[in-house]
């Protein structure tokens, strides 16, 4: 291909070319508008940055080729016939192109989000280095504030939320017996919006005045006054949010319209249920964070008065709008994990999920209750007094549906045949650690207590118990569980267990003591603290370094096993759900023929139980010899 053709066709060349063009466009636009309205100087760095933050990502997405098909379609030009050239990956290079295959997109998501996890984690290491002793050692307060803000934003918007979308992307079409997602091109677009958001947030460190430094919550009015770095968050979140809404919409449509024959809602695996409910949350709640950031953006760049009390604005409005999204967001970050754990506990304990229907109902209950509790983040914010007690009650009631889940998993373990594989270990670790984090959540909901502990390290402890001990443990569990399916290879079980024990122990040593310093009076978001907290902080920092290193075990295991691990059989866990009935990795279009679902997904121990059958012409799986040591799948004929 000539360079000219490369620059015209979709791909990295055109994406690269789009960047100077977008920048030039931004400069031109700003100059034109400012000249028109008689501002001086005509070229204003902040205004250009703001516009460029919007045009450059769009330029990139267009350049890489997410819109080519739609542009042709919309202009009425003959569309390229569907030759599936954008489908499936033949070499590693295909992972760097716009691809419409849900399996490729799933892996693109997972790898990309882990890169941001590593970046966010390394920032946490700098945070801990700074906090190892009182006083200022490595970073000045401005950088410190930037570090934890970017740390949390990456972890939440670029890791937990999208990595769940990635896992679900890979697994859900297979689980429900669909050849792909409902809107494969939208799926690709969702993915490619994501890195732009992440790059933007990381790049904010190079902005004039430093990275955005107002926490991941970006409360007004400080976020409307800080330097230009804030804009990288305000706009970055829009891209991450749009990506998240588009994926959720895609999941909902896929799950509603593309289930295999016989796959009623009550026969769906709980992971599908979990993503169904999560997607509802995303579609309904995410526009609120978009709104809150629009307000900040407008106040910052056009001088409007959403948050200026002197002109009639209202500061607390920000928090209401923000938390109306961000509380549901914590369930967006947890429900898919609940789904993963249900799969793993049942499969690796060889028992049907206890109380399947209640498990599904409890997800729905959490979604509904989740919309009624946002102000529990505002108990000390000076908001309406009357709202506090009702919000305390609804918040505490969430213990009931969540309890249903915890107890049902325990009942599933009871009298099972428990295989302590790495995924199972992480699932068990999750159950105990999340219970602890959930209990601290209940404590936080009790207003007189939270008046004291709000904005302290007790909150930081809660965050990490539910997000690391909760969500991240389920992510690890899920990745180990589906690793053979995704890569066709088996991971190293010994290293997996080592990873579990190291992270379990040092997780607790890192985040456990934060409860103590928090209640004792150490506020969060500080680069410097009183000497009385020095000992615990030193312990926390040292543990956190080892905890961080334990991740290297995981990374090493994943990379080497992916490259040269033993080949995996189709169904190493002898699971019943459909994704395990096809080869590992699955064929390019998932199925030769859509399977028919004839029973529940977890009928372990029920003699002769089958979840899905494939057409009788060909068996979907030829049991392969090497690999994880499971027996041939029981369901093939």
């Amino acid at each position, binding site marked *: 291909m000539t360079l000219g053709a490369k620059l015209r066709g979709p791909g990295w060349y055109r994406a690269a070319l789009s960047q100077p063009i977008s920048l030039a466009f931004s400069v031109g636009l700003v100059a034109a508008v400012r000249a028109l309205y008689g501002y001086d100087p005509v070229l204003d760095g902040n205004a250009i940055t703001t516009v460029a933050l919007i045009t450059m990502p769009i330029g990139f997405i267009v350049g890489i080729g997410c819109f080519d098909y739609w542009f042709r379609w919309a202009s009425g030009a003959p569309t390229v016939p569907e030759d599936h050239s954008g489908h499936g990956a033949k070499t590693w290079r295909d992972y760097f192109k716009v691809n419409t295959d849900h399996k490729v997109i799933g892996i693109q998501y997972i790898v990309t989000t882990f890169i941001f996890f590593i970046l966010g984690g390394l920032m946490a290491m700098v945070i801990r280095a700074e906090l190892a002793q009182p006083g200022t050692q490595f970073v000045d307060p401005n950088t410190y504030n930037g570090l934890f803000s970017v740390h949390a934003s990456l972890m939440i918007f670029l890791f937990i939320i999208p990595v769940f979308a990635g896992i679900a992307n890979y697994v859900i079409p297979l689980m429900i017996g669909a050849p792909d997602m409902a809107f494969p091109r939208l799926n690709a677009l969702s993915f490619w919006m994501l890195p732009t958001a992440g790059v933007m947030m990381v790049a904010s460190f190079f902005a004039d005045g430093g990275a955005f430094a107002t926490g991941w919550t970006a409360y007004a009015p400080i976020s409307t*006054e800080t330097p230009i770095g804030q804009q990288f968050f305000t706009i970055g979140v829009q891209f991450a949010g749009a990506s998240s809404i588009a994926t959720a919409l895609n999941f909902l449509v896929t799950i509603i319209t593309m289930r295999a024959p016989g796959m009623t809602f009550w026969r769906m695996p709980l992971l599908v249920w979990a993503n169904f409910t999560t997607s509802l949350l995303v579609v309904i709640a995410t526009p609120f964070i978009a709104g809150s950031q629009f307000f900040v953006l407008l106040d910052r760049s056009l001088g409007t008065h959403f948050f200026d009390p002197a002109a009639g604005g209202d500061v607390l409005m920000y928090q209401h709008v923000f938390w109306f999204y961000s509380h549901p967001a914590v369930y967006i970050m947890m429900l898919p994990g609940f789904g993963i754990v249900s799969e793993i506990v049942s499969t690796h304990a060889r028992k049907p999920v206890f109380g399947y229907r209640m498990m599904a109902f409890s997800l729905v209950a959490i979604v509904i209750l989740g919309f009624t509790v946002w102000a529990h983040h505002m108990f000390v914010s000076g908001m309406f007094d009357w709202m506090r007690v009702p919000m305390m009650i609804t918040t505490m009631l969430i213990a009931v549906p969540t309890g249903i889940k915890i107890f049902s998993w*325990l009942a599933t373990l009871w009298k099972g045949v428990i295989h302590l594989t790495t995924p199972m270990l992480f699932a068990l670790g999750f159950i105990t650690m999340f219970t602890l984090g959930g209990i601290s959540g209940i404590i936080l909901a009790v207003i*007189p207590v939270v008046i004291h502990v709000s904005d302290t390290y007790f909150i930081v402890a809660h965050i990490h118990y539910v997000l690391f001990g909760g969500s991240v443990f389920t992510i690890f569990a899920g990745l180990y569980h589906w690793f053979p399916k995704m890569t066709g290879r088996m991971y190293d079980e010994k290293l997996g267990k080592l990873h579990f024990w190291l992270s379990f122990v040092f997780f607790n040593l890192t985040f456990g003591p934060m409860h103590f310093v928090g209640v004792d009076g150490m506020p969060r978001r500080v680069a410097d603290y009183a000497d009385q907290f020095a000992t615990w902080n030193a312990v926390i920092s040292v543990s956190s370094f080892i905890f961080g290193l334990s991740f290297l075990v995981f990374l090493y295991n994943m990379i080497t096993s992916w490259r040269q691990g033993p080949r995996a059989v189709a169904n190493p866990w002898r699971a019943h759900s459909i994704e395990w009935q096809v080869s590992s990795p699955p064929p390019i279009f998932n199925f030769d023929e859509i399977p028919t679902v004839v029973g529940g997904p977890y009928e372990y121990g029920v003699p002769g139980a089958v979840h899905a059958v494939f057409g009788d012409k060909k068996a979907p799986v030829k049991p392969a010899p090497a690999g994880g040591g499971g027996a041939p799948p029981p369901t093939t004929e």
Partner: protein
Amino acid sequence: MGRLLRKRPALGMALLSGVSTAVGIVIVLAIDWFPVQASTASPQIDTLWDVLMIASVPVFVLVMAVALYSVFAFRAEPGDLSDGEPIHGNTRLEVIWVTIPFIMVSALAVYGWIVLDDIEAKQTDPLIVNVTGQQFAWRFDYPDEGKVKSTELVLPEDRDVEFRVNTDDVLHDFWVPEFRLKTDAVPGLTTKIRLKPSRIGEYDVVCAELCGLGHATMRSAVRVVTPEDFDAWIAKEQQSETDGGAAAAGGDEAAAGKQLFTETGCNACHTLADAESASAIGPGLDELSADAEKYGEQNDQSPEEYVKTSITEPDAFLVPDFNAGIMPADYAEQLSPEELDTLVKYLLSVSGEEKP
């Protein structure tokens, strides 16, 4: 125990959980969680906390016990390809584990509500203290005690106090850990805290809401003193308030300048040896006269003019390595022209060679 567990797992587990729960409760109650109790709200909140701990331990122990027991009792032998019992549910169990948590959280919520009502109960004739947050310092004034202004919070023991919390700029949060109570300082609102100090001592006001660069160091002293000492302090402050004015008029400009420097909150950001401040958010002012000479020349200003514009329009000229938008830009409104002059003279006189 081991045999019991194997023979009657449920009974054995109940026993095991009972013992662990007891141990757990002893541990959580033995931990010294809180700072000292210095207000009447503290014991109530601490008791509530203990109750929450007592309620939480059995929940956690139960989860751990079932999980651990299952792992040990039902672990698969290597090569075991059998399945577990196909139990799909048990309505009675499910009803139990919906009902019990429901009752527990409802009871705790009611108890929490009662405590909340108690600590926020109306007071009779409280001492009113206005609290104002500003990046990055607190100011206090006592409107009913002759408008005393102070950068230190002094409170009488055993008297109801109502704090009315405001802010000049962004969100802050007024918190004294020993009192257990906090509230955000919200632009456009006055938030309130009511309490009764109950222990003589010195504590810190901590800013608990991220407010920018100096958030970590936004601290002020609180002193709880006997009512007599409090009255004496008020009298003294009233005196020095008049003195300060008199000094400014009468000539003790250095004392007046120092007071202005601390009371306006400059010490929150600037190091100045004479005023005993050591914060490093803004440039140090110990060498200001030299700097003013140098930067003043660059801007065609006399040193005095330079310092004055530095205070009234901080962003007009930026000291190298410092950013715009950090130093508050509204001192021209906060300070009268005379006060401004006093401050400028003071700053130039205490910095550099001609230190008094």
